[in-house]
């Protein structure tokens, strides 16, 4: 092939890419939806295979740590059992008081079950197998079965939806510490990391404190578990403090999710 012919071929390719780029971005929802629709079954197979292989490999590599983990969990379990007994008594008391005051129990959220079929680590988003067809719409919160907040739907297609994880750099919402009720803003900083920002300096925040969502801005319902504080940083200059948060969700161990369709 002659160089001049090659050059014109390359020029045609470049022009075609630019034109296709414009067209595909204009019809991006339809294009993505088309590809997701026939890729979903293959993605599901890959996801399940990856999930079980990762579990198998981690059990081999971490076999030494397992015994310590079992002992630690056993101690934790005993501690939790004693707490549950206390909570059950409180719950009964609460129920009695509610009945006496004529207050009905708060309705739980309306949930829709879904499964993860794809994930983009660098962008902190996942792909789930429910869409417009199942009554989903943008901004609906997504949680795990333990009511751990995962993210919200950012794009919805006919049969699929994209979920922006709370660790995504564009995510920010209100949250509070579960005991002291110290409020602040949870910001995603990428790579599955979170920052609890704008906490007033007067509030006390310590490592291992638990953070839940707040409903001030109406993005998420109140009380969804977000994670635990791992590092608090206070500056002498500013009037706020910050804390790094270890997210409670672990997508490599989670396959099933729930979408809150009404709250």
């Amino acid at each position, binding site marked *: 092939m002659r160089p001049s012919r090659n050059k014109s071929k*390359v020029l045609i390719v*470049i022009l075609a890419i630019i034109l296709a*780029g414009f067209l595909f971005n204009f019809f*991006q929802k339809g294009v993505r939806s088309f590809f997701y629709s026939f890729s979903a079954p293959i993605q599901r197979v890959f996801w399940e295979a*990856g999930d079980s292989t990762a579990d198998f490999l981690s059990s081999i590599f971490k076999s030494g740590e397992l015994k310590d983990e079992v002992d630690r969990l056993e101690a934790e379990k005993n501690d939790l059992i004693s707490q549950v007994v206390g909570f059950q008594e409180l719950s009964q008391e609460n129920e009695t008081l509610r009945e006496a005051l004529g207050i009905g129990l708060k309705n739980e959220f309306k949930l829709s079950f879904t499964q993860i079929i*794809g*994930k983009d*680590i660098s962008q902190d988003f996942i792909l789930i197998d429910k869409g417009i067809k199942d009554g989903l719409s943008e901004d609906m919160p997504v949680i795990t079965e333990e009511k751990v907040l995962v993210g919200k739907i950012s794009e919805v297609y006919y049969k699929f939806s994209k979920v922006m994880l709370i660790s995504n750099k564009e995510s920010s919402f209100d949250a509070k510490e579960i005991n002291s009720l110290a409020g602040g803003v949870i910001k995603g900083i990428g790579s599955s990391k979170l920052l609890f920002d704008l906490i007033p300096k007067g509030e006390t925040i310590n490592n291992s404190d638990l953070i839940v969502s707040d409903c001030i801005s109406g993005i998420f319902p109140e009380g969804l578990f977000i994670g635990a504080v791992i590092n608090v940083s206070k500056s002498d200059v500013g009037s706020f403090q910050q804390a790094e948060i270890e997210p409670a969700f672990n997508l490599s161990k989670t396959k099933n999710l729930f979408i809150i369709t009404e709250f």
Partner: protein
Amino acid sequence: MKKLIISIIILYFLTLFQTSFLVHFSLFGMIPNFVLVFVVLWNIFEKGDSVIGIYNAVIGGFFLDIFSDRFIGFNILILVLLAFILKLISNRYVRIPFKKI
């Protein structure tokens, strides 16, 4: 044409493998990009006058864009640019002693 169809199928499955299987094995939040590896290797070992490597870069980039949150064209541009640079270097400065693709 046969080579192109085969590489489209390979690139499609590599993208799905990357976004649904390899994500379980991330190290420090990173996973290997097999589409990139495929495009790089193809362009290195391709015959000087063939342009299938460039087409592969377009298709590989397109599949990566479809299954990522970025606008369609982001990965295409990166891979095509990379393919051009590789072709330029391998055609002008590198001689691979064994038979090329």
